[in-house]
């Protein structure tokens, strides 16, 4: 069992995950931010590796990705930085990014480097299920990496079942079909979608992401799932010069 699976097994309270882009705002801020987030009470982390053409992202993460690339972030460098990850951080950590950098790094090399660094899972939004099964799954499972799939309000039931079968960490529910950074507008439609998924009694836990920005949206998500993922709202905070010292208050404002 990896750290992520253990967390979902043991934790009773709502789970808070934070996404941030490696290499933003400073090239070498990755571990400082990760450590500060753990101290402040985040339950697990998603570290984004930047890509030049992030089609699933809104302006905030587009900008952080571009800045990180300008700063010189690469997958190679990120894995170097992560060598000290497990000396400083004990909560589960996932890597999140697009498929092309992984492909260029080499799938085997990527899995190996991730496992070596103590990574627990991977989210690659543009990796199709078919390719995952054919080319990635063995390697991921061998290295105890949970692969996280996304589900949207338009995902049909059969496909959700299939995703549930292939998942071994949690399932990432998008609050709506949207690029990242749009605020969650809870309507009767979204609530009935969350309720519909809950009623499916999936084997894997679920988390809600995209558009979670404050205590209200976090609590709403936690009513239907095990918790929520905050990305763009946190990335905005990293825009401030004294970002590290602002992290505790930000996390407290989301949890109770």
């Amino acid at each position, binding site marked *: 069992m990896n750290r992520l699976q253990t967390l979902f097994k043991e934790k009773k309270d709502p789970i808070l995950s934070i996404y941030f882009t490696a290499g933003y705002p400073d090239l070498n801020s990755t571990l400082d931010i990760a450590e500060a987030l753990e101290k402040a009470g985040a339950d697990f982390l998603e570290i984004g590796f930047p*890509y*030049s*053409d992030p*089609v*699933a992202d*809104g302006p905030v993460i*587009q900008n952080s990705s*571009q800045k990180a*690339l300008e700063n010189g972030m*690469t*997958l*190679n460098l990120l894995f170097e930085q992560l060598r000290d990850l497990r000396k400083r951080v004990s909560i589960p950590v996932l890597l999140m990014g*697009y*498929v*092309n*950098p*992984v*492909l*260029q*790094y080499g799938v085997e090399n990527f899995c190996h480097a991730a496992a070596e660094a103590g990574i627990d899972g991977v989210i690659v*939004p*543009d*990796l*199709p299920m*078919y*390719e995952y099964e054919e080319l990635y799954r063995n390697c991921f499972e061998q290295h105890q990496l949970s692969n996280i*799939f*996304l*589900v*949207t*309000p*338009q*995902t*049909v039931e059969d*496909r959700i079942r299939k995703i549930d079968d292939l998942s071994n960490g949690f399932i990432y529910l*998008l609050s709506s*079909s*949207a*690029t990242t950074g*749009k605020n969650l507008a809870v309507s009767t439609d979204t609530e009935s979608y969350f309720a519909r998924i809950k009623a499916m009694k999936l084997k894997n836990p679920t988390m809600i992401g995209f558009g979670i920005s404050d205590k209200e949206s976090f609590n709403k998500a936690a009513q239907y799932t095990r918790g929520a993922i905050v990305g763009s709202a946190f990335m905005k905070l990293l825009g401030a010069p004294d970002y590290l010292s602002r992290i505790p208050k930000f996390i407290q404002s989301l949890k109770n």
Partner: protein
Amino acid sequence: MSYHVNEKGYYGNFGGAYIPEMLYPNVEELRSKYLKIIHEPDFKQEFELLLKDYVGRPSPLYLAHRLSERYGAKIFLKREDLNHTGAHKINNTIGQILLAQRLGKKRIIAETGAGQHGVATATVCALKGLECVVYMGEVDIERQAPNVARMKMMGATVIPATSGSKTLKDATNEAMRDWINNPVDTHYIIGSVVGPHPYPDMVARFQSIISEETRWQLKEKTGTESADYVLACVGGGSNAVGMFYHFLEDEQVKLIAVEAAGKGVHSGKSAATTALGREGVLHGSRSILMQTNDGQVVEPYSISAGLDYPGIGPQHAHLHTIKRAQYVNITDDEALKAGLLLAQLEGIIPAIESAHALAYLEKMKFKGETVVVCLSGRGDKDLATYMNYFGLG
């Protein structure tokens, strides 16, 4: 060896549908229905009628006498420039709008580089009374101003893409984001043989009319439907796939795909994808891509907005890999000169994109062979660039 897509959506190693889950329902709907719809008699009838009466097909196959004389070959121009809206792009947008209608879509989005695909999309939206939103790079909005005006006049909304190199790649990113945010009722009319499966195959089928006509036209004019060489320029590769399609299995025909070298393949300002690229994933398919070692897409450059793209369609990646077609490149300077030459020898001003294909004739040696060049578009949109370059006017 198959030249076409398999049931998994691949051409050899290339293709697939590398899309986030948010795009899956729309792409899957398209994948599961496109073949059935385009084979329905009522679809075929409407498609053919519009191509004939609205687009003006068949487009002529013109034997360019003075050009032929100059090069010592029998050079035919496939006159896609004479289509309504001035390029081959409309063959695809007519097909896709009829498909979108049959899928019950109410809103159409598109990306555009040179503006030809944007214009062709705005045109079919006006024809069918559908809402139209076109994404176009800020740089392209400037260098292809006449096409921006045409789109607006036909009622389309043109949204500038301001990220990256502010050209075709970035416009495509924005269109994909729009589709993610509008998962119901919107159809994305991709303008080339790129994107996730089934787009490359679907667009190829709509553009295949180019070579279908060429073959019977050659038969009429030369007594045989074959040729020695067939040339076309490649941005994403739709006019080239359309021009090659019915020649693929005719193995004696040499197929030549011309990419944009910009200021030179190794100048750092180029869009010669097969010369500079490696296997990678962009805009939903696995193909050949200009990228860094870290897998970041390299900003391309070409004077021609329609060829200023860091990738090529997966079918081209396949044809390149198995060497069924030869991929070559032409610089800005060579293309502009070829454009001027055609204007002065034949009274035809080609789009700068098409001028890349013409320019390659200069590098070939002929002994009376039969050659077909796809004249993918007319040069009206490029007049300012030609005038500037040659100090005319």
